[in-house]
């Protein structure tokens, strides 16, 4: 006993001594003038043309300023472009540019800089390239005006200009190369390379003379990448970071740990029934079979048990805050195994059938057996095809699968979702399926605006749900955890709220 006490005391003494000489075991980096963010991953490139959507947006926003920007409800408003206007047939977009803005290498921001950036974005392979595709030509009207000539109207263009497509990098730096390793933007902060370590921490210091300083109240921003949720959560509770993207299961503990919990409707999870023509799985070619699959899922039970109630049951694949959302559609497929069997029988499958369902291994793995069980109950046997990483051959595997399960982003405007999943060239429509109604609506929506456009989006969504192109289960809530010393305004339809929505707590 005596030995134990001695050892404990010695251990404590050594720990305290070490803590003393290192400034404490818990060095809290945060202060009222410093914001420390935990991020989901590392920034692999600083070239906006190669950046991928997602959590990397915080790195980008620190150093680059976009032409337009999004409000918390994802409405578009001016930023580096002070005015923007379409012509009558929505094929020309004129942007008036802010005067007196410079890049961090003292190059002036002007119309030519916009042209160089947009042309570079078109050539890249990042998220911006999709939105840039419609830009045929960038015309420099004068020093402060550019006109974007479009191949066709594009409802997603303004949102693109508010993020990766619109991030302005110094044209001088773009021409010299090296933008991938050294960011040179016109944004609110400068990357402090001396206080940064690749993959460990990135320190950004306030840039003198930035035109919109009040919107970014912190003198310093530090971003620390953590791949692992446990590490990120521990860093948050011990004050090493002030904000993180969390998971639903963290919510109860986060509340007892005194953290601020915020949620925003995020991704939908469920099944893409992509073989709608029945090329590989003939049964899927019958709408009644696809509807049966929708009836077979007890969404409420799955929401309560698998998602801990954080989210809402959904038959739709659009964002709840988007113009396409129709609340009543969620009543379209109540859990009804008898109805599902009836539909299967009517379609000629009284004994059910077998279907291959691929899924991304890891975070989807726990959901797949649940879905397989529900489908099994109505006679549909699910043959599970795990996909281990898209870069490791997964994307190729997925292309041949009649159906697959994933977690899919939902966006504002809904056009981004259209481009992702509904056109014959969409990445997630590998069988290139379409029908007359969808073809018509995809032509009419870009040419319309305002209420008329919203009505067309709703018509499209209703048609997709009725035709059961998908079997969504829930729209889950994205979870964000933060320390009480900061205020974060949540943003609809963006994985991470923009940097300017962070402020010291009032």
């Amino acid at each position, binding site marked *: 006993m005596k030995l134990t006490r001695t050892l404990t005391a010695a251990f404590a003494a050594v720990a305290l001594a070490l803590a003393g000489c290192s400034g404490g075991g818990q060095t809290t980096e945060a202060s009222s003038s410093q914001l420390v963010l935990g991020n989901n991953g590392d920034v692999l490139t600083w070239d906006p043309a190669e950046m991928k959507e997602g959590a990397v947006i915080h790195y980008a926003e620190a150093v680059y300023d976009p032409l337009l920007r999004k409000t918390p409800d994802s409405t578009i408003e001016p930023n580096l472009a002070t005015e923007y206007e379409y012509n009558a047939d929505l094929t020309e977009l004129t942007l008036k540019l802010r005067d007196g803005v410079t890049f961090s290498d003292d190059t002036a921001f002007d119309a030519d800089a916009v042209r160089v950036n947009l042309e570079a974005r078109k050539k890249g392979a990042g998220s911006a390239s999709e939105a840039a595709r419609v830009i045929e030509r960038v015309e420099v009207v004068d020093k402060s005006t550019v006109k974007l000539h479009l191949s066709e109207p594009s409802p997603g263009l303004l949102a693109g200009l508010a993020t990766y497509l619109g991030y302005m990098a110094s044209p001088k730096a773009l021409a010299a190369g090296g933008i991938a390793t050294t960011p040179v933007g016109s944004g609110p902060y400068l990357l402090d390379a001396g206080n940064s370590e690749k993959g*460990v921490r990135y320190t950004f210091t306030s840039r003198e003379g930035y035109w919109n300083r009040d919107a970014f109240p912190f003198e310093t921003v530090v971003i620390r990448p953590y791949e692992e949720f446990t590490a990120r959560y521990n*860093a948050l*509770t011990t004050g090493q970071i002030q904000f993180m993207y969390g998971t639903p299961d963290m919510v109860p503990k986060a509340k007892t740990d005194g953290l601020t919990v915020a949620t925003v409707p995020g991704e939908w999870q469920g099944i893409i029934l992509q073989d709608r023509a029945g090329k590989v799985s003939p049964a899927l070619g019958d709408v009644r079979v696809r509807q049966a699959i929708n009836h077979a899922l007890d969404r409420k039970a799955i929401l309560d048990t698998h998602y801990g109630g954080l989210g809402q049951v959904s038959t739709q694949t659009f964002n709840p805050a988007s113009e396409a959302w129709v609340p009543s559609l969620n009543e379209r497929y109540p859990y009804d195994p008898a109805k599902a069997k009836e539909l299967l029988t009517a379609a000629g499958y009284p004994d059910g059938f077998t279907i291959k369902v691929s899924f991304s291994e890891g975070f989807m793995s726990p959901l797949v057996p649940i879905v397989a069980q529900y489908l099994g109950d109505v006679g549909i046997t699910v043959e599970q095809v795990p996909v281990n990483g898209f870069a490791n051959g997964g994307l190729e595997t997925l292309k041949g699968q009649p159906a697959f399960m994933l977690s899919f982003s939902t966006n504002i405007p809904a056009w981004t979702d259209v481009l992702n999943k509904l056109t014959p060239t969409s990445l997630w429509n590998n069988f290139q399926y379409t029908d007359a109604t969808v073809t018509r609506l995809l032509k009419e929506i870009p040419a319309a605006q305002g209420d008329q456009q919203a009505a067309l989006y709703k018509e499209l969504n209703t048609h997709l749900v009725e035709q059961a192109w998908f079997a969504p289960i829930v729209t889950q809530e994205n979870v964000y955890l933060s320390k009480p010393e900061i205020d974060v305004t949540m943003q609809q339809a963006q994985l991470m709220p923009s940097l300017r929505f962070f402020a010291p707590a009032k």
Partner: protein
Amino acid sequence: MLSFVTRRLAMGLLLAFTVVTGMFFFLMLTGSDPARGALGLYATEEQVAVKREQLGLDRPVVEQYLDWLGSALRGDLGLSSAQNTQVMDLIVTRLPVTVSLALGAVVVAAVLGIALGLLAATRPGTFDRVLQVVMVLGFSLPNFWVAIILALVFAVNLRWFPATGYVHLQDSPGGWLLSITLPIVALSIGSIAAIAQQLRNSVITVTNQDYVRTLRSRGLSGRNILLTHVLRNASPPALTMLSLQFIAAMSGAAIVERVFGLQGIGAVAINASGNSDIPVIMGVLLFTVLVVVLVNLAVDILYAALNPKVRNS
């Protein structure tokens, strides 16, 4: 002794060559696509084709391998296909983290494992039985689970250690020690148990041999016999176990690093694997194999020093 070391070194290098060669061709056969990994899902087929050409993936596999090997022998491991970093820079900055953990874990395991093994062997009865249970328990606990528990108790609740992050030794020796203590404990618990168990059994076996009885009958002290004669003959199996534990620690570090948010070679390997970043995967593999070969060589030399017969085997 020199020829023994030369022989072992040559065998080690041959092993390293075989492993990296095998791994290179294996990676090429898995269907991984470094070009797609680098560009992401939304890149067009044309863009992927251009990247493939840039990375030299359109050449015959043997040519790619010879190119990689030739460069590696000159100390150039190429550029990461997924990020704008030289593979050598990435490894040189990250390897100290993992080696600190793995070496630290093995040193801790050696000291505590030997002490506990000797105690268990020399104190039969209740003490030995209790130690046996503790050792089996220690061996069976997964190190990622231990890591999570240690982080929760000693970093999050007691705040004795930082929850995440690595402090470089040159920046703050105290901070460095604090940052690696919990990861080392997590990594070494299983090894302590394995080494202690191995040594206990060897010591008991050797203690019951005739020559020990003879030494005892000649009046030598128990401590002298144990430390000078028994331990010398009982330690080779424990040494073998130690080198195996080093390999286990190197691989276990990948998981433990993630729990403690340490950017070591394990984190690099996991990220590279997700992006099919073959240059980085190969670089990590090469360095890991070389470190393992060197540690095994050191153990072999120690083994030979303890047992001269080994040198001629």
